[in-house]
């Protein structure tokens, strides 16, 4: 191989010192949020702290856990009054405490759905959407008693349903959750869901590394156009990666004998405590219908 000839500019040495200017500043908004999202998803997948604790939900077989939580979610949907919803709230609170799930951890995870629903329902508070008895107002726009009641009830219902689902996810290992789900949904659907979930994190790692790679090569303020181009190229990269990964996974499955039919090991029989849990949860559901 011919000897490498290095250009003259590559031989230029820098002698000036490279010093921090002593001024501290906050990290960039986008950067901080990207890291936050990656860390949030990472925690969601890898954090199994509550699933390994000895508590009420953890003691129940995953299939029974899903059936029970489904009954309680349906109870939230069926609850038409404050009494029924408060009852489901108390049951949820008791389950959280008995399953040793910290309330602050639960609230932190439910908060996004609470905020999202609240923003969506904001207009419902006001007289132009829900006419009724005014309780507060400003410049001719009033919050009505009926509007506030409807919005609070709906927000509470959604938050409660999110809490129940979060309780299920926090106390169930990812593999157990999908194994449980397999008993109620077609195997093909659950396997596809599991693989989607699995590969989202592979692609998230690509996105995170891409951000770091750009950061390591950027030292001047770029133009908006340049940032847009970079963003578009990363979307293209992730699309390309997801297509090639799908093709490779499909070939790997074919090479291991996959013929379009998915068989699974049959579930273990539910024990007495599992049946008791399911029975109680569905009792709460039927109770909510009557209240």
């Amino acid at each position: 191989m011919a000897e490498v000839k290095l250009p003259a500019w590559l031989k230029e040495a820098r002698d000036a010192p490279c010093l921090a200017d002593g001024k501290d500043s906050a990290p960039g908004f986008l950067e901080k949020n990207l890291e936050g999202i990656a860390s949030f998803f990472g925690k969601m997948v890898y954090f199994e702290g509550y699933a390994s604790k000895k508590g009420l939900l953890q003691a129940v077989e995953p299939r029974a856990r899903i059936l029970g939580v489904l009954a309680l979610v349906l109870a939230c949907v069926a609850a038409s009054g404050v009494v029924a919803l408060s009852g489901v709230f108390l049951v949820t609170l008791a389950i959280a405490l008995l399953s040793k799930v910290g309330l602050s951890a639960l609230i932190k995870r439910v908060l996004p759905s609470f905020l999202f629903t609240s923003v969506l329902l904001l207009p419902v508070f006001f007289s132009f959407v829900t006419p009724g008895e005014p309780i507060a107002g400003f410049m001719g726009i009033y919050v009505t008693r009926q509007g506030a009641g409807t919005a609070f009830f709906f927000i509470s219902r959604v938050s409660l349903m999110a809490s129940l689902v979060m309780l299920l996810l926090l106390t169930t290992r990812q593999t157990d959750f999908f194994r449980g789900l397999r008993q109620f949904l077609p195997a093909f659907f659950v396997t596809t869901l599991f693989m989607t979930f699995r590969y989202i994190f592979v692609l998230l790692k690509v996105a995170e590394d891409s951000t770091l790679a750009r950061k390591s090569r950027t030292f001047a303020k770029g133009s908006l156009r340049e940032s847009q181009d970079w963003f578009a190229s990363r979307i293209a990269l992730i699309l390309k990666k997801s297509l090639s990964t799908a093709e490779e996974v499909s070939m790997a499955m074919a090479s291991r004998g996959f013929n379009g039919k998915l068989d699974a090991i049959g579930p273990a029989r539910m024990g007495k405590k599992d049946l008791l849990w399911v029975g109680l949860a569905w009792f709460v559901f039927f109770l909510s219908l009557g209240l």
Partner: protein
Amino acid sequence: MEKEIFTLEGAGFAYNGSFALRGISLTVKAGESVAILGANGSGKSTLLKMLDGLVFPSEGVVRFMGSELKEETLKGGFLKCFRERVGFVFPEPDVQLFCPTVFDEVAFGPLQLNLSKDGLKERVEGLLEMLGLSNLRDRPPYTLSSGEKKKVAIASVLSINPDVLLLDEPTNGLDPRTQVWLFEIMQGLKELKKTFIIATHDLSLVEDFAGRVILLDESHAIAADAATPKVLSDKDLLLRANIIHEHTHRHGGLTHRHSHGPYSTHDEHE
């Protein structure tokens, strides 16, 4: 005496509650060629990212030419100076290449140096010529082979003429000819007193290129920091750090037990 480029004092990095690196204390001087060796998951890549100011220590301190590298200080003039002087080649070239063509990719760094149009063109084309990439100048990087992508990734970093090169698994996935090509480029840059810090599993690269080895063990701490021959000749240390392995097999009536790696021997017969 050569000036200190990086100084780490008890630096550690925790991710989701578990440590990827612990209590790392070391100094890298200008012109050194340092290899970071370690088993999978020992923290080699995290250490390189920390040296490139991409992640910041959750304990201890990392300094670049005397200034602390942290999220709050790596801004403005210091950020520009730091990024001009330190280049990082990622193990996966796809994440590093984001411009529409190979030419744009190599020009991305120099464009930020405010070079004249002619100076920029001369620099990029000279580099493409030197690295044998001229025929690919108008190709989109995603259409290239893995070896070509790696070459473009290296070109994109070299184009800003960094003083320090951080290379994460540089020979991974390269065919033998491209490995030799890369070695020759690195050797040429080493003669220009560039500082190299390489994370790798490639013991032959370490033996031929690096003057010093930092060995990370599976507890994510430094197990050894010494001259390359000293570390690579310590078979027990390499076995403990899971860099080489040992096995027993038979040749006819003779049973051998030996390690794998550049210092493997067939001297332990039964």
